């Protein structure tokens, strides 16, 4: 259990993120508003305006520019930060891919919100999941406190000289960004010791001109791509180490790349990420009270994909139900696809069922959890994998 918070205040999740970013002393912040991310950059603007944060705060005219400012600033060796959501993240996409190849270790908060069309400001993870192939490290959090801690860890992970990749901390809009929870802050001195100033390997310097983002012939392109993947593979252990190191100063330990909740003897294991994990844990507690052996794997790091830890945890289970609020149209949900790909050809692996839940803010409650667990058991008993993902609570009568 977490110790009694020492410097806890009841604050909005966005304010918690702003405080976490500020304690990491970013030298450049770029900002463009989009709901539900806006309160984060507004809180940072206030800190800069009040003289409590010495940072270059750049107001830009679009998310494309927000990402471009970040890339340029990061290339000069400045610790850099921005946040966005939904369409804003999609508009950043081109720059984010380019930043990965140039190994620019900035931190970005991806505040999860559904993607148009139709327009929705409610939560799902289609926005950040659509960036899964870019080469950014993606962390997901369940609570405002975990968001605070993840941001402090994110800068250290990003700036590791063997990683040097952007890190996106993904947190659900509204449920986390706009709700108030007790959040414990880490002392500035402790963070300074944990996160020394960024020492870039390469940086832009007018006295020593270099070429960034240059053309690559086919004879080196694959090697450059692989080097990003290789950094991702290395990052798996490094992220665990950074989380462990941070937990020693914060007193809070959420686990490594995944958190296994009541999985020890579980016959049914659910897999999810983000704030919905709190609801799922409550749902599991009730199912356990009724004698059902159900557990949860909360994915804390989605890229790199921690399949080793997941496979180890699900091995004794009969069936795995992935609950995810994203979908690759014409295929399945992203987590289901990742997991099935890694399970394929492994004898004795449990059946995996992909449940699509919560798109566009559709409610996921304890009844949903019970329904998914029951369906997973039912499909497992039938012994046949589903041909398609199962869309929970889909009202077919509404289809055009």
């Amino acid at each position: 259990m977490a110790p009694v918070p020492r410097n806890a205040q009841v604050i909005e999740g966005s304010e918690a993120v702003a405080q976490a970013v500020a304690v990491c002393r970013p030298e450049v912040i770029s900002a463009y508003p989009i709901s539900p991310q806006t309160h984060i950059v507004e809180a940072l603007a206030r800190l800069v305006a009040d003289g409590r944060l010495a940072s270059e705060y750049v107001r830009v005219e679009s998310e494309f520019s927000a990402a471009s400012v970040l890339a340029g600033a990061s290339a000069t060796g400045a610790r850099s930060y921005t946040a966005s959501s939904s369409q804003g993240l999609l508009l950043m996409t081109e720059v984010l891919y380019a930043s990965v190849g140039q190994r620019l270790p900035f931190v970005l908060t991806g505040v999860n919100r559904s993607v148009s069309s139709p327009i929705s400001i409610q939560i799902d993870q289609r926005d950040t999941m659509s960036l899964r192939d870019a080469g950014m490290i993606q962390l997901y959090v369940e609570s405002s406190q975990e968001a605070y801690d993840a941001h402090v860890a994110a800068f250290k992970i990003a700036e590791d000289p063997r990683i040097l990749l952007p890190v996106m901390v993904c947190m659900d809009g509204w449920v986390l960004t706009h709700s108030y929870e007790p959040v414990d802050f880490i002392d500035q001195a402790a963070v300074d010791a944990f996160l020394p100033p960024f020492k870039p390997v390469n940086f832009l310097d007018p006295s020593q001109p270099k070429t960034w983002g240059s053309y690559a012939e086919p004879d080196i392109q694959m090697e450059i791509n692989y080097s990003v993947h290789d950094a991702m593979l290395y990052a798996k252990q490094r992220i665990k180490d950074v989380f462990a190191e941070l937990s020693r100063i914060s007193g809070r330990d959420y686990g490594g790349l995944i958190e296994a909740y009541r999985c020890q003897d579980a016959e049914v294991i659910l897999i999810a990420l983000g704030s919905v994990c709190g609801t799922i844990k409550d749902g599991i507690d009730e199912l356990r009270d009724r004698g059902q052996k159900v557990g949860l794997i909360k994915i804390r790091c989605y890229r790199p994909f921690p399949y080793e830890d997941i496979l180890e945890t699900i091995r004794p289970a009969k069936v795995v139900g992935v609950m995810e609020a994203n979908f690759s149209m014409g295929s399945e949900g992203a987590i289901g696809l990742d997991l099935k790909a890694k399970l394929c050809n492994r004898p004795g692996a449990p059946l995996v069922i992909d449940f699509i839940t919560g798109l566009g803010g559709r409610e996921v409650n304890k009844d949903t959890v019970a329904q998914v667990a029951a369906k997973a058991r039912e499909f497992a008993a039938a012994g046949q994998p589903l041909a398609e993902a199962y869309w929970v609570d889909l009202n077919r009568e509404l289809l055009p």
Partner: protein
Amino acid sequence: MKVSMGAVVEGRTSLNYKTGSWRDERPVIDQEACKRCGICADVCPDSSIKAIEQPGRDKPLYVVDYDYCKGCGLCAHECPAKCIEMVAEEK
């Protein structure tokens, strides 16, 4: 050769990259007809036409650097004296 982190490269490394091998037509300047106006050097996208100062003459000689000229033909197109001919490369 190793690829650097982020594929960042030091300045002037493009000099090692002889783009002249891309060319399938080479510009040949008729030095007798050339008025030495320098427009060809100005328009060359690859800075591959060099001005060489001539002792005793007030205007330089313009010479193509075939190590880097890609054979785009812009110089021949723009030459007011029509003294640059594009000649097919043969291998």
